[in-house]
């Protein structure tokens, strides 16, 4: 098995194209192998006849393994300079003549008169790697690696940037240390606890198959309603109410999967993403389906205010069944938000944009304010169709803001 690439340690035999007795030319590809990077060929070193095949299709062999033997003529050996088995055996022969140059090289305790002068005792001067206390992705992580990662607070996701030089491309502890040394030459800042909390939540959420569907929604009616209201509900609150009503009509879509069951929500408590310094908090508005828009204004305003001031309690953050996020407030029109790890759905809305839309009634383009609605869902629980229906319903509800 030849060395097929810098970090390749082994390859699987896909196809052996010859049999014992087959005549082959020099540089002929006779075996097809697959590494974790590509399919490659093993070629002959010279011409000859296949005398032995020592490998099997479908099996993996390390680089350097003898896969087969060719019978070659002496002229061919002379022509190509290949090393025969016999020559290799002779090199390994261990009854050397006294004084022969091979004596020292191969068998240490060969000749009788051979002797060895001891070196004086030494003390180790190498400090080496620090002792850890207590992958190209998710490959084998050795105990030492794991201990070192624990020591540094790293997860597998954190080391995905490192190319591994170990067997099968694994990241070895030396690779890690080199990378860390390298990264330490870059400017860095300490991640805040908020940042780490968000990182952890997003990482956990991402372990699921998430998909996003979008729908443009006309905001004119909502904006109109809002202008005439006092106090003025935020756009997000309209969305919150529409979402809650739509969900109450189809609770299963906000359910979560536990084994073979879909667990439905008991109460339509929906969270609202609030951007704070260096992160996001998601306070939960309770029983949104049962409270009208005016009833929610004060509660919502209080949660958002406390959120920004970092005065939310644990109770404020628990128990949500879905989340609403208004990335339009940042001027964004499109987004693919990520649900919280314990929720199946997140509904986002982008910025409203004035644009011409076709009116069937007047058969002309009329100005309207449109925003993108985006619904990201855990595809194990909800499909595109279900998500689509939900979005359509929400859009419908938003066209009758006075009923919210």
């Amino acid at each position: 098995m030849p060395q097929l690439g810098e970090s390749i340690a082994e390859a699987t035999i896909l196809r052996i194209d010859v049999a014992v007795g087959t005549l082959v030319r020099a540089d002929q590809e006779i075996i097809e192998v697959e590494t974790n990077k590509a399919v490659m060929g093993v070629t002959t070193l010279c011409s000859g006849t296949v005398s032995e095949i020592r490998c099997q299709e479908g099996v993996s062999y390390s680089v350097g393994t003898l896969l087969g033997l060719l019978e070659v003529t002496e002229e061919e050996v002379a022509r190509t300079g290949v090393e025969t088995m016999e020559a290799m055996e002779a090199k390994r022969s261990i009854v050397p003549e006294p004084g022969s140059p091979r004596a020292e090289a191969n068998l240490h305790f060969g000749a009788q008169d051979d002797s060895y002068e001891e070196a004086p005792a030494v003390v180790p001067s190498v400090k080496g790697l620090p002792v850890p206390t207590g992958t190209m992705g998710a490959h084998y992580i050795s105990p030492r690696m794991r201990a070192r990662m624990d020591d540094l607070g790293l997860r597998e996701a954190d080391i995905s940037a490192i190319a591994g030089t170990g067997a099968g491309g694994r990241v070895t502890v030396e690779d890690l240390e080199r990378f860390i040394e390298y990264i330490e030459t870059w400017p860095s800042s300490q991640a805040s606890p908020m940042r780490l909390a968000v990182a952890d939540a997003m990482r956990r959420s991402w372990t699921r198959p998430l998909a996003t569907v979008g729908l443009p929604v006309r905001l004119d009616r909502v904006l109109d309603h809002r202008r005439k209201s006092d106090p003025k509900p935020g756009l997000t609150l309209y969305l919150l109410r529409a979402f809650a009503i739509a969900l109450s009509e189809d609770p299963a879509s906000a359910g979560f999967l536990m084994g073979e069951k879909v667990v439905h929500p008991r109460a339509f408590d929906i969270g609202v993403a609030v951007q704070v310094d260096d992160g996001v908090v998601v306070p939960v508005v309770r029983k949104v389906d049962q409270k009208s828009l005016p009833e929610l204004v004060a509660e919502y305003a209080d949660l958002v205010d406390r959120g920004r001031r970092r005065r939310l309690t644990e109770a404020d953050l628990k128990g949500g069944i879905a989340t609403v996020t208004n990335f339009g407030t940042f001027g964004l029109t499109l987004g693919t938000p990520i649900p919280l790890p314990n929720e199946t759905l997140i509904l986002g809305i982008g910025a409203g944009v004035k644009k011409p839309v076709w009116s069937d009634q007047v058969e002309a383009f009329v100005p309207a304010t449109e925003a993108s609605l985006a619904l990201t869902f855990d595809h194990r629980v909800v499909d595109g169709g279900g998500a689509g229906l939900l979005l359509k319903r929400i859009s419908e509800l938003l066209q009758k803001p006075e009923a919210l």
Partner: protein
Amino acid sequence: MSVTYIDAIREAQAKLLREDPRVFLYGQDIATFGGAFKATKGLAEEFPGRVYDAPISEDAMIGLAVGAAIEGMRPIVEMQFADFSSVAFNQIVNQAATHFYRTGVPVPLTVRLPSGGTPGSGPFHSQSMESIYAHYPGLVVLTPATVTDAYHMLLDGVALDDPVIYCEHKFLYRWLKAKSINGEHLPIGQARITRPGKHATVVAYSAMVHEAIRAADRLQEEGGWEIEVVDLRSVKPLDMDTVLASVARTGRLLAVGEAFPWGGVTAEVVARVAAEGFHLLDAPPMRLNARDTPVPYHPKLWAAHRPTPESIAVAIRQLLSF
């Protein structure tokens, strides 16, 4: 002026006979003849009444040594070959090794075992028995790899109140030389870093230390690898502190021994590193021993039976490529 490994053993015995009246030597052909390997050459003449030719009765030789040790003597019994100590196995492991535990009276005897293979010696003149004796509680098992250790560890071993199995390697007798029996030495129970390194640790003892050094040289030439070689020096007690510190430096371990592969010293080292230093290992720990057959006679077979610099190098390369 150079001193061989066997000179060191002889010198140590001479010093003991000279300075400690409790010491006497008992073994086959060790008196006028000076021993099969000449480990006691000249000692019977220099110290009359202290060096005895024993009958071919390994069991009784050890029984006698135990009785004498109970009565305050410090006998050194030379087995002509380690292989023949199996005849004395009962007296060593059941009489000598259990005595302190059972009666509270220690037995300060020393058994010298000429161990290990030389070309053409065959199955009954080549064995390495350290693993068998280390298995029994109540014995100290020493495996010196250097001329200095051959000298000092014999002195230190005889000074212990406990029974000592001193495994001297036959190949090293005349092959290994040093400028002198260097004054500084490590105590029993401490292993030595023979060669510092950072990419992998090779733990070895006795003659295998030298083979490991050759393999390490090879790897240095080949790819600039720095392989650390640890000489255990005493198999029991086993210096796990040094071994673990080495594995902490390198993350990779290969334990090499000349004994048979089932169990033994290399298995003990690997088991302890796996248990006590699991988080230090970046690769699965490896062992390399002789093959699972009796030691063959023909030099070509013999050379392939035990670890050599080549086979050690192959094992190290495998370890490094993980």
